[in-house]
Each structure stands twice: as C-alpha cells, then as structure tokens.
C-alpha cells in the first residue's frame, strides 16, 4: 500500500483515539502511540525518505497537513479534558446560601443623625458639640428661661451631685442638659458671629421610660447668626433641609408658638403621604424661631447688628416616623434583630 493510501486511515484512527481518550493520562498515551518517537504516525513520516524523489513533495505536504490536524485535535481535546478535570467533583449548587462575612450596621439613630447633618452641611452648617453635664446658666439662664420656670424643676430635670443641696434655692447644682440649646450659648460665647452650626447630641428629661419616652434621647439643634437674617431665611433653610431628609413630597407648616429663647417662636408641622397614612393632617416635628435679643445680649452680641434663627427637634421622633418604629425603648435595647434592619 502506498504511503499516501495509509495516511488517511491512520489519521482517522488517531483522531478517533484522541476523541476517545477520557482523561488526560489516556490522552498523553494516545499522543505517544501516534506522535511519539515510536508512534505510528512518526513511523509513517520516516517512510517519506523511501519515496521516489518526484513523489516526495506531495506526500510531505499531505503528511504535514495531517500532522497539524492531529496536533490541533490533540490540543483541543487536551483543553476539553483539562477543563473537565478542573471541575469540582461535586457540582456547585449556586442556590446554596453563601459563606457570609458579618457586616455590622450603624444604629438607626446614627443613620438618621448622619442624614440630617449631611443635609445641613450642604447648606453651609458646621457640626458643633458641647457637654452633657451642664449648668443652669447655659441650659436656662442665658436662654432667657424665667427663674421659676417649670423646666428647671427637679421633677423634670436631672441634677447631679449632692442631693441634700437639691432643695437649696440658688444651689446651682450641675444638671444634665434638657436640650441641645445650651450649645448655642457655648458656641456664641466662644466664637464671634457669623455662626452657622448644627449640634446633634444626647439630652435628658426626667421621664419614666415608656413607648414614647426615655430619660435619655437625642436632639439636633441648629443656629444661624448673621446680619439681616429673617424669618424668611429660617423658613427657606428648614424647608430645604426637611425636603432632603423626609423626601421632596414633604410639606411644612410654621405656626406661632412660644419658647423663651426665640421671638418670634414657631412650631413646625409637616405632612406627607406617611402622615396621611397615619390618618393625620399634620405632625409636629420641630420648634424654631428668631434668636431672642435678650439671648444675644447675654452672650455679648449686639442685637441691633446681628439677627439669627435657631431650631431644635428630636432625632428619635424622626427615626420613628421614617422607619415606622412605635416604641422608643427599642433604640436602647440593642437587640441585634432590630439593629440589623437598618
């Protein structure tokens, strides 16, 4: 049989053997059997030299082509088998729950505080801070609170220190601040105007814990002092911030109220789809007003030159509204099933 006549059957045999190799070792054996030094295909190539000179080119060309074809088939089959070998023995069930890393959550009060702070910072407010143990001067006197105002009462305010002095008039015991407004005074006494600050922090009222009260809670205070500041500015800024925090569908309403440290004093009600869902027209959310000239005088600012506004509101209340939380105590129990929801 001529060499060329042997070529096609041998090639077919080799291709079939490569295709039949079921794993990599078998494939390598098969390779050796045909293309190795003693392989059948190598033997065929060795016969090339025995051919007459005029037949050599055509035969050489045919053999080379067949060899390339076999090598390509070998590489393809090797890739196939390598891929097969790389597959895990047990196929992966991609619907299984993955191996999760624990990721902690920020407390919902932190998240709400951060959102509010971010909204105020966008319009130029800086965050300020002050002590939680305060004195009567910063918490009440300087804020124009009358000397016999009920807020100062030991029924409503926690005092610190020797309780035998509690009933002593003028004892001036330190107290736990009842509002973040005390920081207004501290900042104004330490910085010249203009002032533009926001103060998140803990405050304390002497209320027994129940679904809507906790002796400890959080407030945010804002203060803006500059020349020519008006009620219109107060409304505009508060509206911008609350739209940012509560959503652009929120509507605000300002109505007259009374606080000793602002004049005029206003309360802010808001409404949105959520409030309507609660069956209400408006929900009270914050108190605010133009800084009382007496407060400016107390800190040494000239009320004829400087005007300003201040506001304050409870963070728990906003968080409760935002997330539909109905019991304030949940914030302080730190149940991880609660914390992980936010």
């Amino acid at each position, binding site marked *: 049989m001529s060499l060329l006549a042997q070529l096609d059957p041998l090639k077919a045999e080799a291709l079939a053997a490569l295709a039949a190799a079921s794993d990599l070792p078998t494939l390598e054996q098969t390779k050796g059997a045909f293309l190795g030094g003693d392989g059948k295909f190598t033997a065929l190539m060795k016969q090339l030299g025995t051919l007459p000179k005029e037949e050599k080119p055509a035969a050489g060309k045919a053999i080379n082509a067949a060899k390339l074809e076999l090598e390509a088939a070998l590489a393809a089959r090797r890739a196939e088998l390598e891929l097969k070998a790389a597959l895990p023995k047990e196929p992966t069930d991609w619907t299984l729950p993955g191996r*999760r*890393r*624990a*990721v*902690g*959550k*920020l*407390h919902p009060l932190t998240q709400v505080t951060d959102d509010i702070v971010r909204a105020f910072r966008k319009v*130029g*407010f*800086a*965050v*300020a*801070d002050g002590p*939680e*143990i305060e004195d009567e001067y910063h918490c009440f006197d300087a804020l124009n609170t009358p000397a016999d105002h009920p807020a100062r*009462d*030991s029924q409503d305010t*926690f*005092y*610190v*220190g*020797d309780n035998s*002095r*509690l009933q002593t008039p003028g004892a001036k015991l*330190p107290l*736990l601040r009842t509002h973040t407004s005390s920081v207004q005074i501290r900042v104004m006494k330490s*910085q010249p105007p*203009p002032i*533009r600050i*926001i103060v998140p922090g*803990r405050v304390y009222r002497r209320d*027994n814990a129940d679904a809507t009260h906790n*002796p*400890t809670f959080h407030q945010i205070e804002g203060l*803006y002092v500059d020349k020519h*500041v*008006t*009620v*219109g500015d107060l*409304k*505009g800024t508060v509206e911008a911030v609350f739209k940012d925090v509560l959503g652009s569908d929120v509507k605000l*309403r*300002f*109505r*007259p*109220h*009374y606080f000793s440290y602002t004049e005029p*004093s*206003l309360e802010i009600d808001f409404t949105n789809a959520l409030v309507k869902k609660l069956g209400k027209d408006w929900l009270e959310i914050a108190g605010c007003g*133009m800084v*009382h*000239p007496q407060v400016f005088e107390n800190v040494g600012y000239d009320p004829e030159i400087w005007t300003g506004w201040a506001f304050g509101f409870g963070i728990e209340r906003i968080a409760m509204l935002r997330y539909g939380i109905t019991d304030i105590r949940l*914030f*302080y129990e*730190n*149940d*991880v099933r609660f*914390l*992980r929801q936010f």
Partner: protein
Amino acid sequence: MKVTLNWLKQYVDFNWSPEELAERLTMLGLEVEGVQKLGGEFAGVVVGQVLAKDKVAGSDKLSVNRVADGTGERTIICGAQNHQPGDKVALILPNFALPLKAGEKEPFVIKERKVFGVVSQGMMCSKKELGLGEDGDGIIILPPDAKVGQPFAEHLGRAGSDVVYDLEVTPNRPDLNSVIGIAREIAAVTGNALKVPNVSGIQNPESRIQNHVAVRLDEPALCPRYTARVVTGVKVGPSPDWLRQTLEKVGIRSISNVVDVTNFVMLETGQPLHAFDYHLIAKGAEGKPTIVVRRAGAGEKFKTLDNQERMLTPDMLLIADEQKGIALAGVMGGANTEIRDDTKDVLIESAYFTPTNIRRTSKALGLRSESSYRFERGCDVGIADYASQRAAQLILETAGGALVPGVVDAYPQPAKAKEISLRFAKTTELLGVAIEPEQQAKFLTSLGLGQLPIANGQSATFSIPTFRVDLKREVDLIEEIARLHGVDKIPSTAPRGAVGTNAFDAVYDEIAAVRRLLTGLGLNEAQGQTLVSKAECRASSAEIVALSNPLSSDMDVLRPSLLPGLIHSLRHNLSRKNNDVALFEIGRVFTSVNGQPKEERRVALALTGARALAFWSGDDRDAKLDAMDLKGLVEDLLEHFGLRGIMFGKRAEPNELFLESAAITLGGKVQLGELGQLLPALAKQYDLRDAVFLAELRLDELLARGNRNKSFKPLPQFPASRRDLAMLVPEATTHDAVLQAIKQAKPANLESVELFDVFRGKNVPAGQKSLAYAFTYRAADKTLTDADVNAAHTKAVDALKLKLSATVRE
C-alpha cells in the same frame, strides 16, 4: 383651655366653619389639640308652624301641610290627625336622624320622598318618634309661644349642638386662658368688634360697701390688688340651663348658681374669683369684717374646700379675717367660709396675686386648681374690678338678691401702662417681608394696644394693656405682627450667607469614620442608656457622678464606662435567643475628678458567641469567639488611628470585671483602655453562656493622639528572602519578648517578622511552647545574596538563643 364655638360667638362675630376656626386658631399660635363635636339632642329638629293643611288626593288619612321652619316653607305629608293650621310643631328636616330607639342598630334618617305624587320635605314628629314618651298617635303640639325656627333642643332647654375646642395655651399668653381673650384674637383677625359684656348696671357711684367690709393688705408685694364686693339676699340653688350647660361642655361640674357664676366669669375673663359666705367671716369691732391679706404663720393649719387640712408656712399667702384664715390666696378657698345652700349674703373676691408666690405655694402643697393655674401664669391686674362686676351681675341674674353699691378696691399702686416703641423697618428686617407701617399699627391696635400720638413715619410707641404680660420689648410687638400677618405668608428665602465653622466639625467626621470601621469589621452599633445603676459600676463612689434626683435605683448614676450598658445589651439579646452578638458603642462616660464631673468619649466592644455567621459546612463552623478575635478587632481599631508604641500590659490577676485582661497604653504611660474576658461568675449572673469579650478605649485620647497623616513609600524594587525559624521557648516567654530580642539584635535588612505557628504538645516539653516565625529580609538598593541574609539571620537567631533560652528546632 377649653372653649366652645357658641360661647365664642357671644363675644365676636365670625362665619368660619368649625374646622376653619380650628385652623385659624392654630395658625395664630393657639394650637387646637382636640375638637369635639357635640351633636346635642334633636339635631335637625326645629320648631315649625303649620300654615295650611289639605287632603292628599287618593288618601283618606294623609294630609299635605305647608309648614314654616324659620327660614322658609316646606311641604310635609303627615299621617297624624291632631294638628290644625297655626299649631307649633316639632319638625325634623331631611337628612337628619331620629333619636335611636331601644333595639335599633342604626338611627332612622329622614329623607325627602314622594308620597302620592307629592314630595315630603321632612316630618312632623310624635313624642314617641323623638323618644320623649310612648304617645305615638299624634304629633307634638307645642305651646303657642314656641319660637318658630328655634332648635327644638333649645326650646326644651336642652343642650344644642356645639363644638368644644381644647386649646394649648403657651405659658407666655395667660390672657388666652379666657374666652374673651380668645375672642379678642378672632376680633383682631376678622376686624369685627369684640363684644365685652356690658356691666354698666353694676357700677354705682354710691359706695355703701364701706359699711360692710374693709380690706387690709399686709403684703402688697404678693397681693398688689384685692377687690371685695357684696351681694345680699341671694337664693343659692341650681344654675339655669345655659350656665350649667356652658360649664359642663368645657368639663366643669356645676355646683350651685353662685359658685358656677364665679367659675363662669373666671373662664370668660381669665380672672379667678372666689365667693365667700359673708356671714361666716368674723366681724370686727366696727361690726363689719376686715379681709386681711397676710402671710400664714409657721405651722398654721388650714382646711381647704376639699376638706384637706393643710400645714402652711410663712411663704404662703393667706386670706384671713381678724380671727382665722378663710382662703389660701389664689389657690383654694377655705371650708369654713364656703358658699352653702343656706348662704344669704355673698362676698366676691377678685384679686391679683403674684405668679411666683402662687406657684411655690401650689407646688409645696401639691395642690393645683384652675385658679392657681391662672395666677401662676400671670393674670390681668387691670381686670379685677370688671370681673367682680360681671360676677355680681350674673349672681343677681341667677340667684337674685341685691347688690351693695360700690367696691372695696385695695390697689395701693396701680400698674402703670407699659409703653414699647416699634421701628417699622425693624419688622421688615426681622421677618423678611415688607408690611406697611399703617398695617403694622393696625395689627397691634386690633389686639388692644394703644397707639400713642407721637408717631413719625419710622416708628411709633404703643401702650400695652395689662392683660398682655408677655409684651416686653420691640421684638415682642414684631411677633404679634408676624402672627396676624400670617407666618405662612412670609416668603421662604433660599439658604444663603456665611458658611459655618466649628472645631468639632472635623471630629464629627472622625467619629463617623470609627463607626464605619467597626461596622465594616462586623460589629453592630449600640446606643446604651446614659443612666445606669450604681450597683453595676466598678468605679468607687468618689469617682461616680450620681444624680441628685434619680427616677429609680436602676438609673441613679451617670455611666462611668460603656461596658455595663453593653453587658446589659448582651443579656437582652441572649434572653431573646440571639446567641451570637458583636456590638460596639461610641458614647460619653462620666467620672468625678476632684469632685468635678468630667465627661469623655469612649468606644467599647462586646462580643459573645460564634466567631462566624452560621454556615452549612466546614470543621470550624461552630468555632466560638476567643480572646484573639477581640484582640484582632482592637488592633484594627488602633491601626486606624496610626498610633505608634501601643502596649498591651497583661494584668496578673483577675479583677472585679475581667477574668484575664490587659491594659492598653501608649508606651506604658498614657492609658488608652483595656480589653479582656468577662468573669465567668458575672457572665453567669447575666445569663451569658459563652465566653464574653470586652474592650473599652478612650476615644478622645485616640482622636487627640492619632496620626492620620499618610505618606507614600515606594514599592520595593528588589526581591525579598524569607527565612523560617521554629524554636522552643519557656511558656512565659511572650511574643513581644521575641520581637524585642530580635529588634535589639538589629539584623541587617530585616523587613518584617511574622508569627505563623504556636504549638504545644507532641515533641514539645511541658512548660515550653513552639513558636514559628517567618523573617523577611530585603534591601532597598540590591538583591540580597544568601550570604547577606544568612549573616543577618544568624545574628537574630543567636540573640534569641542567648536572651530567651530558645532552642531552635531544625
């Protein structure tokens, strides 16, 4: 303060709906906290008059009637036979319901309907239909003097429909604790006149009162004004319907005509009044009583109207006769002189007491009344006589008797009218809206302020009525203008102006970064109570900041550490089967330093339970957290601050909180915090089953000392060589000692030393442990040769052998 729609309408005209009134009052600053609609009885039933009665074609029994209802005429088909043209009847209008009968689930609503081709526009009612009796045969025929169109309930003297408003009166506006005060606000908004009841019939130039009573003010500072008026020959009895109903609608119990009048006038004018039985007041030498306004004696006993005997102090003001106390000034009358059924002559007290004193007395005795509520907020010193006149007028009207002409008005220093100037431009400047000066002045005068005639274009001076105790300076007037102009009409202006600065601003972000780091490390953020139990604090009493007036012993001190709160949170979780908990808290703690309370921020960690989240395969899936988990978290946290020289100093012994623990310091000097494992006994006490790991760090200290400056180091250009070293060392040898020994040997080009194995057991003698370290050598400027590395490494190994008695394992 409760007030009703109908009551308000007696003092000012307005045609707002009940809802609109609520909205208007709220926007004036009188927040409406509740609105209660009183349907009243017989809603939609009015007195009608039959004008004509004719037969209905096609019916034997029915008649078709023309009936006047007070506003027009209606056609009414009626089956009853007992009425004639001219009769007054009880007519119910369409779309109103008959009273609910026994057994009915829903009331029967009268509708317009067609009967025999005629539309009947209502119904004439029988007694049975109105629930007034069993007689259902014929309709009610009313007396001829019944007023056509009058609500049937009013005709019967019963309560008609009304709306009760519960208003939140802010403490600065005591004048709004009165119906007239609220009506005045409405008058100012509507521009309609305020109709104050006319008492001119009571005023009398004759003053025979001097023969009946004298008043002596011993304490004019506490009682600047006291008026007394006497009505003789009254007949004490039930109040007329209008008076009783008016009081009951606003929640005041009717007692008797005389007492009800004093309450009514208090609600009407805001001036608390008291009525004494004149004859129970002791008479002096001149045959007439002298009312003495004095301080109570120390330990003086006095029985108030509620029959409680009270022990008084000289801080309390007493109304007395010359023998005994008869009223606790401004708070409550005395049982000894109260109005009785047989009282004939009445002395009316209308006085002004200073707010602070009344508040203190009321608080000291734990006794609050409508009267003390008003006095402690500040009454109108100017209104005392008017209120007394009004009370006398109504007593005469409801209880008969005769007025003793005149009044004893002890008012030694009449209040001078305050005057406040207003610069009109200042209003615009503060409110951000331009309001014409004329309009500003009009707003103020409509509220009862007087404008003095010295106005120029720029400013004006106003006299302040005595009832407006809140108006003290210019800005207070501007607030009034804002209220009447409408705060909602002030246009909002977009944020503008200065950008704020504060040193804390950057700190806020640094704290936020710590929070994010710790949540990223898998811990949930907690917020604990600031107030904790002293019993659970480790600190000594001297260091603890205690509350003077705690609510309970559970919360009697300010937390000296965040750890007790976190332990509580662990317990809370464990008790709810959340067994794997990792929490952190950032918050303030409070300690007493030399008697002065000091606060500082800390960050604390608390861990218990499984190391990793639940998983469904793996040998170590059930692994519990251990001390090195805590240590790793603390290391990550400390690394965040970029501090150098942090040391963990092992404490030799367990303490009251920790089983094993270490103090974290900066170079052994600056205390940064501590970490360790909770004492098992304590853990058990809190029902914590697994080991509990705790750490607390002084955040303020970390923030202050932290170094967040970062600078780039070029990446290495040349390869590193690694040498591993396993050695046996005594159990007590610390990792830190190994590092120190290596460091002191100063092996050349040593880049890092990493511990990769600690082993005890097979082939390791007891009392020893095997430590395995990877040493990495690298030079910045060349590839190190084996000889270079070996020389350096030998130096390190020799030092370990020498200093730590280490046995190198080959």
